[in-house]
């Protein structure tokens, strides 16, 4: 076994442990921090697979934006220090296990069926290729996703904002 293999098995173990901690800890902020570890380990795994762009996107978008917004949201609403009893719940453990195992099974099956040790990119960098594909073959889904995100953004603002002008119109 090569050093890279040992390293990636170690990373997978770390990923598994931090993933388990994310769901078992009863402190919201601790869960978020373990989620950072999970995402960071995933990013390192992507780097080992020479997909630097995906790794950096994981760090920039998930760690730098999603987790930060999550922490921000938790802190600005109530920010409890210490464990939160509401997060410990014993209901539906069986159901959760069945669902997560079946998702795992489905993903493993699909990925093995589709890719099974075929090397998609053998040399060069994946970033340039990714950019070209995004703006040629996948340009329509790419634009569509950005449109959906824009819609979600406007919807979020509309729901959250108590706009005085709109309220006045309703009252009339």
């Amino acid at each position, binding site marked *: 076994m090569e050093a890279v293999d040992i390293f990636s098995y170690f990373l997978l173990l770390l990923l598994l442990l931090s993933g388990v901690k994310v769901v078992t800890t009863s*402190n919201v*902020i*601790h869960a978020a*921090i373990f989620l*950072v570890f999970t995402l960071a380990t995933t990013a390192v795994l992507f780097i080992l697979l020479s997909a*630097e*762009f995906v790794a*950096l*996107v994981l*760090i*920039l978008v998930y*760690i*730098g*934006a999603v*987790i*930060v*917004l999550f*922490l*921000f949201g938790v*802190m*600005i609403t109530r*920010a409890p*220090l*210490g464990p939160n009893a509401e997060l410990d719940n014993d209901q539906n453990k069986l159901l959760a296990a069945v669902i997560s195992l079946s998702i795992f099974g489905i993903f493993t099956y699909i990925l093995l069926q589709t890719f099974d040790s075929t090397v998609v990119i053998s040399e060069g*960098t994946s*970033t340039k290729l990714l950019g070209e594909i995004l703006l040629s073959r996948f340009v329509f889904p790419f634009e569509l996703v950005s449109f959906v995100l824009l819609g979600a953004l406007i919807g979020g603002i509309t729901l959250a904002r108590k706009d005085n002008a709109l309220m006045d119109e309703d009252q009339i």
Partner: protein
Amino acid sequence: MSFSTELLIKVLVVLATAPVMALGLTLLEVKGSAWMQRRPGPLHVGLRGFIFPLATAAKYLQKETIIPNDVDEPVFKWAPAWVIAAVVGLFTIIPLSPTLIVRDLELGVFFLLAISSISTIGVLTAGWSSANKFSLMGGLRAAGQLIAYELPLILSVVGVVIQAETMSTVGIVEKQIEFGFPFVISGQGIAFIIFMIAATAEMMRTPFDMPIGESELTMGFFTEYSGIRFLIFYISEYINLFVMCAIASTLFLGGYHVPLLPTEWVNFYGPLVLIGKTFLLAFILIAIRWSFPRFREDQLQTLAWKVLIPLSLLNIMATAIMKVVF
């Protein structure tokens, strides 16, 4: 040389360089402020004030670490680590010369933006875990500010990337050498100003020091820190100042090269030129810090969302049009 030895040497060199640069900038800051505001301490005491940064470091090193009762201990203890890891990690892509760089990543600029966003977590968790309302306020203000100013920072760099057609930091400098003028003159002047404003806000320096605000929040998110952990926050502030100014010089001011100097000798004068430019930019930021009052919170958010982001989007559009036309 095997990969692991090379890695070890690079890590050790970066770990030695970062505090030295921070020390240099601390000296520049205290001497600069003393010079501008006539403070006798850093001007006259102990070797004409040059002993000041070392004395500060020694003072914090021998102070006791105090951990208040109600804090969330692991989160509180590890919060400074996020911040310093993020700022030291950025040394990877600073080119002191075409070859004197930790690793010339193909996605250098993108790496910069990704890694620099990690320090926000440190600031937020520090503010939250201190179990102190002022610290929490500081942490929240810091998060709001860092989220708001990360966008203009990213968007202003996009213009440079479009003009240089590469994300590698060495590639960007080589492009400027090839072009003859640094990007700040040849097209990215507005982007440079936006980048400097956003970087100042990201570093939480005056006039953007609402999260720290010593007169109202008593140092904000690091009120409860003492001893070595306070020192880590303090040092990472200056390492961050160095890194941001070095990256601004690389992206906009021609990096390790100045026009008219022979490019064959760049390995000799490169490091000196880059560090010189960095300290010059840092001095401008220090001068700003000691001359201006701080923004109000709403003015700060307005500046980011209503002025800087639209302006940087316009800059991207203009650069893209120019790229297609010429």
